[in-house]
C-alpha cells in the first residue's frame, strides 16, 4: 500500500532536501560564468516549468528532458556537442539550431547565458 511507505519516503525526502542546498559549487567555470548566478537565473526564467532540475525543488516540469547529469552529457538536444560554448548559444537561441522546437527563445544576454551554462555544467 502506498500509504504504508509514506513514513520511509518522508525520511528519505527530508535527507534529500537538506543536502541539495550545497550542490552547486561557487566560483567561475569553463564557460566563464558564475554557477550561483546561473542557478538563480534558471529559477527566475522558469526552466523548471519544462525540465526537472536536480537541486531546484520547484523544477518539476515534464515537457523537456530532465537535466540530471547535464555536465556529463555528450550532446545537447541531439544536435550539438555538449561544450560550454555551444550550451551558452543553445540556451540563448534554441530556435536557431532546431527550428520550431518546443524550447522558447529565452531572451538571455550573453553574460546570463554563460552563467546558466556554468550552472548546468556543474550538474555532475
Amino acid at each position: 500500500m502506498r500509504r504504508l511507505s509514506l513514513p520511509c519516503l518522508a525520511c528519505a525526502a527530508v535527507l534529500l532536501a537538506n543536502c541539495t542546498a550545497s550542490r552547486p559549487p561557487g566560483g567561475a567555470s569553463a564557460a566563464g560564468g558564475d554557477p550561483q548566478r546561473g542557478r538563480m537565473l534558471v529559477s527566475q526564467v522558469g526552466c523548471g516549468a519544462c525540465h526537472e532540475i536536480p537541486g531546484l525543488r520547484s523544477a518539476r516540469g515534464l515537457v523537456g528532458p530532465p537535466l540530471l547529469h547535464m555536465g556529463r552529457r555528450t550532446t545537447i538536444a541531439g544536435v550539438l556537442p555538449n561544450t560550454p560554448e555551444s550550451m551558452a548559444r543553445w540556451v540563448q537561441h534554441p530556435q536557431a539550431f532546431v527550428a520550431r522546437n518546443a524550447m522558447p527563445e529565452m531572451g538571455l544576454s550573453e553574460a546570463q547565458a554563460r552563467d546558466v551554462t556554468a550552472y548546468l555544467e556543474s550538474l555532475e
Partner: protein
Amino acid sequence: MSAWEDTRAPETRRLGAPGLGRELEEIWGEKPGLLGWISSVDHKEIGKRYIVTAFAFLILGGLEAFVMRLQLAGPELRLLTPEAYDQLFTMHGVTMIFLYAAPILSGFSNYLWPLLLGSRDMAFPRLNALSYWIYIAAGLFLYAGFVVGRGPNDGWFNYVPYADRAHDPGINIDVYALGLILLGISTTVGSANFVVTFLRTRCPGMSVNRVPILTWGTLTASVGNLLAVPSVSLAFFLLWMDRQFGTHFFDTGQGQPLLWQHLFWMFGHPWVYAIVLPAMGMVSDGLPTFCRRPLVGYTPVALATVTTMALGFGVWVHHMFATGLPSLSLSFFSAASIIIVIPSAVAVFAWTATIWTGRPVITTAFLFFAGMIVLFVIGGVSGFMTASAPLDWQLTDTYFIVAHLHYVLIGINVFPVVGGLYYWFPKITGRMLDERLGRWNFWTMFLGFNIAFLPMHLLGVLGMPRRIYTYPDGMGWSTTNLIVTLGSALFAAGVLLLLVNVAVSLRRGAKASDNPWAAPTLEWATTSPPPPYNFAVIPSVASRHPLWEARLGESDARSRLDEGLLLDHGRETIATTPLDAEPNLILEMPPDTPAPFLLALGLAIIFSGAAGHWWWLVGLGAVLIIVALLIWFWPNRTHADEPGQAGHV
C-alpha cells in the same frame, strides 16, 4: 441465586468479615475465553478497552501529523501528492477529534465513574459495552476507506459544496458521512449512560454537591452530546442523501451551502467543550491530591463547568465570521464568545489558588496537571483573540488557528489525560509508572509541544493559510516551519517515552498500594486493581473527600467505608435519589452477554452495505440486529416465574 423478591431490606456488613467477597467474585467475575471477553459488560474492562483503543488512534493520528510536518518542513517539498496530503490532514483531524479525544475521556470516565461514585457498575452496563463496540466499528470503518486511498479528504468539517458529489465524486465523503453517523450512535448511547449513572447510581450520601469534579465534567459533556450530536448526525445524513438520492439540502442553486456550516458548528462548538471539560475535571480532582488540600472553589468550578457548556451552545457562529454575516450578528456572537472566557478564568484561578494555598508534591502527574494550566491559558487567550469578529477575519484559517486548536486539544486534553494516566495507572494496573522516566516524559512532551506549536502563532500572523500542502519560498515561513517540524519530532519522542514507561512498568513497575497518593476520593478506598464488583460493601459518604476526613479533622463528617450494604442476591447495586442520594431501589444489573457485540456488528454491516450499495448486506445486518435485540430483551426467566416483570428495560 435466590428466588425473585419484590422488596428487600439489604443486609449491612462490615469489611473484614470472613468469606466476604468470595461470593461476589463468583457473581461478578468475567467468564473465560473469547466469548467471555466479548460478552463482558464490566465498566472497568470496557474503560480499559476504550483507553487502549483511543491511545492507538492517538498514535495513528500522530504519525499522520508527523508525515505532514515532514512535507511542510521546507518550501516546495514533494514528499506527498496534494491528494495524499488532503486525506492525511483530514484523517488526522477526524482521528484526533472523534476517535481519540472524546473516546479517551469516555474510557477514563467509564473506568472511574462507578469507583468514584461508590457503585458496582454504570447504570446500563450493556449499553456501555455497546457504545465501545460501535466506537471501534466506526473507527475501523473510517480507516477502511483511508487504507485503500479513499479516505475523507475535505477536512474534518467537510464543507459543502466541495463535499458534494459534483466536486468530490469518490466514495471518500460517503465513508466519512456514514462513519460519523455510526460513531454518533456510540456517543449518544454512552452519554445517556453517563447521565443516568450520575443521576441514579451514586452511593448513599453522595449528594450532587459531593461528587468529584470529573463527574461534573463528564456529565456536562454527556448532556451536551445528547443535545449536540443529533445536529452533526443529521447534517451527515442529509449530505449522504444529497450525494446518493439527489436531494437538495446543501447544493448550490436549490440548497443552502451555509446550512451545512450552521448544523456542523451547532454541534462542533459544544463538542469542543465535551472533549475538554472532563479533562479539566481530571485536573480539578488530581491537582488537589498533590497539593494536599481540597480544591479551592469546588462550587464555582462545578458551576463554571456547566455554564461553559450552556454558553457553548450559543457561540457556534464564531466559526463562520468570514461568511458574510450582518454586523449585528457579528457583535452578538463576538460578545458571547468573549464572555465564555469567564468560566474558564474561574477554573484557572481555582487551580492556581489550590497550588498557592497547598503544599504541592511534585510528581509526574502533578507536572502534567500544572503544565496544563499554562497551556490552557495560551489556548484560552488565542481563543479570546479569535472571538473578536474583525480580528478573526485576519486570524481564521491561518496557522494561528492551527496553533490555537492544538493548545486547546493537546493542552487541555492530552496533558490532563497523560497526567491522569500517571495518577490512576496504579489503580488500574496495580503497579506504579516509573517516576524518573516520567520526568523525562513530561519535559520532552512539554518542550516539544511548545517548540512545535508556539511558533505556529507567528506563522499565522505571517499569513500562512492552513490546509496547504506546500508553500512558496520568500513568504517568510520557511525557517519557522522547520522549527515546528523539529519540535514535533521532540514531542513525538516524548509520547514514545510514555509508551516505553507504560510497557516497562506494566511488567516491572513497583507494586501499588490501595491508595499510593493518599488521595481523598472513593476509587482509592478499594484495592488496586479493584475487584470485579468494585466494593465488597457499598460505602456511604458524608463529604467530598471521604478518605481525608480524619486528616482534615472534620468531626461532623463521617463517611463509612468499612461498613455498608452487602447486596449479594445476584448482580446488584444501590440506586439513590437524583439530588440527595438517598437509597430508594435495589438495582438489578444484567449478566454478561454478547448481544452488544452482535448489535454493533450488525450496525457495522449495515453501514458497510450502505457505503458500497450492497443492499443484501444491509439485510444481513438487519437480521443480525434483530437477533441481538432478541437476546438483549429476552424476558428474564426468574422474573417470569413471578408475574409482573418483563426483564430489564
